[in-house]
């Protein structure tokens, strides 16, 4: 079966449905700048698949660890930095290995 249902973007109401969240949660997450959809107002907002997973992560952290929204914004940005640094560190180590192996 060939599948062509890949979607890269979605609107506000679809994000709420897909992430199974009440609107005010998503509004809060956007207001904190945790995700930055394109468009000026909620009915024009466009979200990427990546934003969906960040939104879900934000809600999980909020629910499971009892963190307030500014705390979530900080945690997500730090986690993002950490992930990037880990990936970069991994790459640099690998390149160094290639360079020093004889």
């Amino acid at each position, binding site marked *: 079966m*060939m599948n062509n249902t890949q979607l890269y973007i979605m609107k506000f109401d679809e994000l709420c449905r*897909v992430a199974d969240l009440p609107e005010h949660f998503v509004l809060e997450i956007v207001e904190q700048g945790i995700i930055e959809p394109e468009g000026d107002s909620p009915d024009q907002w466009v979200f990427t698949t990546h934003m969906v*997973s960040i939104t879900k*992560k934000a809600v999980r*952290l909020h629910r499971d660890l009892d963190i307030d929204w500014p705390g979530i914004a900080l*945690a997500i940005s730090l986690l993002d930095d950490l*992930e990037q640094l880990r990936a970069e560190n991994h790459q640099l180590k690998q390149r160094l290995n290639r360079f020093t192996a*004889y």
Partner: protein
Amino acid sequence: MEFKDYYKILGVEANADKKAIKVAYRKLARKYHPDVSEHKDAEEKFKEVTEAYEVLYDEKKRAEYDEVRQYCSNDGGFRPPPGWRPGADRQEDFSAGSDFSDFFSSMFGQAGQQSDFGSRRRQASKGRDIETDLPIFLEDTLSVESKTISYTIPQYTADGRVTEITKSLSVKIPAGVEAGERIRLKGQGEPGGPNGIDGDLYLRIRLVPHPLFDVEGHNLIITVPLAPWEAALGSKLAMPTLDGKITMSIPPNSQTGQRLRIRGKGLVKKLPVGERGDLFAVLKVVMPKTTNDDIKKKWQELADQAAFDPRSEWSDK
């Protein structure tokens, strides 16, 4: 059925007060939260800790649990006390898809799962989303590729039992996918409950490490070993790229660590369409592993004739 020692899981004494239980839970929850932790069993650990907290922080559940705990045998097995009525008889909500252990479910029933999270009830009707890794070879990111993926999802039979089925899908992977990117397949996750919508499947792209090329954004990096004379005199060599070999010129007097750019032989960019990153060749001068008297003589001649001090910057100090 395996008995769960919730006190041990939270690392608290059996007489711990609510405050101590909450502190212990919060510490462990932060440690094992799957979004934060690098621990390989993070998800399992987190569920276990949450389950323990749900029981021990609730006075009624804790009392019930304490009573049952007395019947826990030393070997970790669990013999239900006489007259014990498993909670499974109580209320069953098969579509909720409980995250908790059999032990928990049999004591408190799946409906025993409390959550102050507003949307839990609605989640009961929507199937859960599934996220899974999709390893992709670098070569396969250059053009649109069809990949067959297999994954398991729970399936609810007519009589409410849960079985697992393996699903296979053919998925088109667009050119230029990047590590960490997620592809959403609508409605291919866990099935929803009666009248509910199905969950989605998210494929998280993972680039398989290549034996020759490292990835840096849209650029690729390859290390090029050179003989000392190739570095000194320059050379033309056949160099592998992701799409076949090319001839590359090494300029005379090349240095270890020097980067040569080969335009357009990197990874495909999504935008602008058709554009590609570059391939960087990093030069590395290597010595032959063995030598003989003739060669040694030649090196000696070179040493005598080439007035070269590679450590000139040391002598200034």
